[in-house]
């Protein structure tokens, strides 16, 4: 059985193991035990105390309850940029025009901004390659939207996700080569690592502050602005299906897009609903019947749990939960849970 729950100190070893396998580009899960330790501590504190949103960094794990191993992580930062400065480039347009000369040129121009300051960020998504099946990825990612739906007061109205930008097989980012690297001699992987360990603001301070006319960058770099790494394509498609949009914000290092949504416009938030749990012995597993899957959360802040149930379990205003699942979700009959279909239900 796969279950989402808050991270805790016992997950340290498994988390270190996962971080080793992320590769470049997942800056929020660096291969650095000290830093991961800090991340766990911060998350535990956030779940335990409902800390001020400016410090709240929530981290969830996906646990395989059979093996008791954690096989995936995901996070939410309640508000970015309130401790360190949060930077993005915004792609804007400069027009040079003269009717007399027959000139009308539109030049994409990158402006360094702190515009996403104060927004919530969904981040740190990583799933063990062996578990990239059976909707585990969707469970992991979308469980966060139920958390947003259950506790909107703890988050900003707007949430965004920074998507890993394009890099080639050797890990070279053309955007970095054409821009960041010109301003300080450092390989992308190193800058990426420093970002993950909290050096992003330092690096940003070295980046150009004035707007950058895009034609000054190499053709390769221009092409990858706002593009995601091919491994991140499915994640982007999933978020866009949930209502996230690209509005021109990109990462200052690799040019990857930051896509945004208002929390109450996210499909999984908008369509989620509350219903009563009904714990049922010998619940028939009807998953095989092509029934749509539903995410179900226990709506408990500190002991948050999310799992998948079959749509066949859902009646008017109740959901049938097996005894085993009820134990994992830490619920009893009569408790109110929140549910939403895992994918958009075509009507």
């Amino acid at each position, binding site marked *: 059985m796969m279950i989402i729950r808050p991270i805790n100190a016992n997950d340290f070893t498994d988390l270190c193991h996962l971080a080793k396998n992320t590769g470049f580009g997942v800056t929020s899960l660096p291969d650095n035990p000290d830093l991961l330790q800090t991340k766990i501590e911060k998350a535990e504190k956030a779940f335990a105390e409902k800390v001020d949103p400016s410090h709240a960094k929530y981290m969830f794990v996906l646990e395989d309850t059979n093996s008791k191993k954690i096989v995936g992580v995901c996070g939410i930062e309640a508000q970015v940029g309130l401790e360190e400065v949060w930077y993005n480039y915004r792609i804007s347009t*400069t027009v*040079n*025009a*003269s009717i*007399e*000369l027959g*000139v009308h*040129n539109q*030049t994409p*121009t990158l402006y360094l901004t702190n515009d996403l300051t104060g927004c919530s960020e969904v981040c740190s998504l990583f799933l063990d390659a062996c578990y990239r099946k059976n909707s585990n990825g969707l469970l992991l990612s979308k469980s966060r939207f139920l958390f947003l739906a259950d506790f909107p007061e703890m988050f900003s109205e707007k949430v965004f996700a920074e998507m890993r930008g394009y890099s080639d097989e050797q890990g070279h980012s053309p955007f970095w080569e*054409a*821009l960041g690297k*010109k*301003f*300080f*001699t*450092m390989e992308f992987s190193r800058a990426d690592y*420093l970002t993950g360990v909290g*050096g992003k603001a*330092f*690096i940003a*301070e*070295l*980046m*150009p502050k*004035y*707007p*950058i*006319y895009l*034609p*000054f*960058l190499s053709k390769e770099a221009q092409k990858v602005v706002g593009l995601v790494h091919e491994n991140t394509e499915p994640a982007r498609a999933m978020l866009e299906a949930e209502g996230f949009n690209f509005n021109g914000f990109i990462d200052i290092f690799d040019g990857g897009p930051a896509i945004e949504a208002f929390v109450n416009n996210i499909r999984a938030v908008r369509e989620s609903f509350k219903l009563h749990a009904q714990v049922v012995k010998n619940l028939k597993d009807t998953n095989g019947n092509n029934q749509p899957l539903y995410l179900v959360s226990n709506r408990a802040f500190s002991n948050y749990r999310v799992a998948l149930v079959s749509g066949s379990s859902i009646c008017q205003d109740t959901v049938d939960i097996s005894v085993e699942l009820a134990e994992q979700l830490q619920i009893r009959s009569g408790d109110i849970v929140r549910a939403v279909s895992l994918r958009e239900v075509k009507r």
Partner: protein
Amino acid sequence: MLIVRPSTFSDLASIEKLANHNSAKISTLPQQRDKLSEKIDASTRSFAADESMEGKEQFLLVMENSETGEVLGTAGIDRCAGNGQPFYNYRQDELIHSSHQLHVNNHIPVLYMTHELTGKTLFCSLSIDSKYRNTDYFELLSRSRLLLIGLFKERFDEDIIIEIQGVSDEDGGYPFWDSLGRHFFDMDFATADYYSGIKSKTFIAELMPSHPIYVPLLSEEAQTVVGRPNALAEKNCQLLHREGFRVGKHIDIFDGGPTLEAHVNHLNTVKSMQSKSTKVSESTRGGVKYLICNGSFSDFRCVVGQLTDGIGDVIRINQTLAKDLNVSENECITFAAL
């Protein structure tokens, strides 16, 4: 005898020939007849101190072969760079991108668009028949302007600037333009320069991007030519350096060529020139070559001639020189060593 004097309408055809011969290289000397005609008109009115030109006087001197009437060179002075409009340059500056934590300390050259040279006196429109490029007459043409402003300082700004043509490649392309302006205009340097001539440089400059430009983002070719003069301008640059001009922080926004700057009182010609009243003789013999001009503004004349300078306030000149300079006995001439 070659004489430098204010241009007149009768020089039009001759200047046009010179302008076209110099191809697109001198943007302040237009190739179109009507534009040239306007420039001569502006100069004529400026030398006449016509009120309509106040604050935007443009002077155009020509070097004429007095026997044939042929114009062999031009040299211009704009009283106020920009001629009443903003005068655009990039100022070369440097930002230090530094971080103790990351052990990084990078000096990043940046170009800022500025108008700060607007209103300074601008030397411009220098062109010379290639046959005379390596003669004393090149110096005559270029330095005659120094005598003029030295004599009539009140009519000019105390700071003098000169834009030196930037580096072009073998195919006539301009790496600086190709890496910068071209992104915003979609036209080659020659075309932009052509529009610059028929419209105004300000007109084009106002279409250029206004944000600072990070030099490391330009092409490598462009980076190497920032602030460097074209080989063709080398001779003029040497002359100007000897005069006391210094390379400033400003470069041309189109070709990246340097701007030379000097205070009028620091110019060698201005510092060393002397004025004496004349005694006209039948003929004089020997002497040393000087740049010599009369003391008239509206009928300015400047030549290369021989003088024997001695103690005292009077200098002897022969009748030919008196005629070329249009001076009579007891009138003043001004001269400086060649």
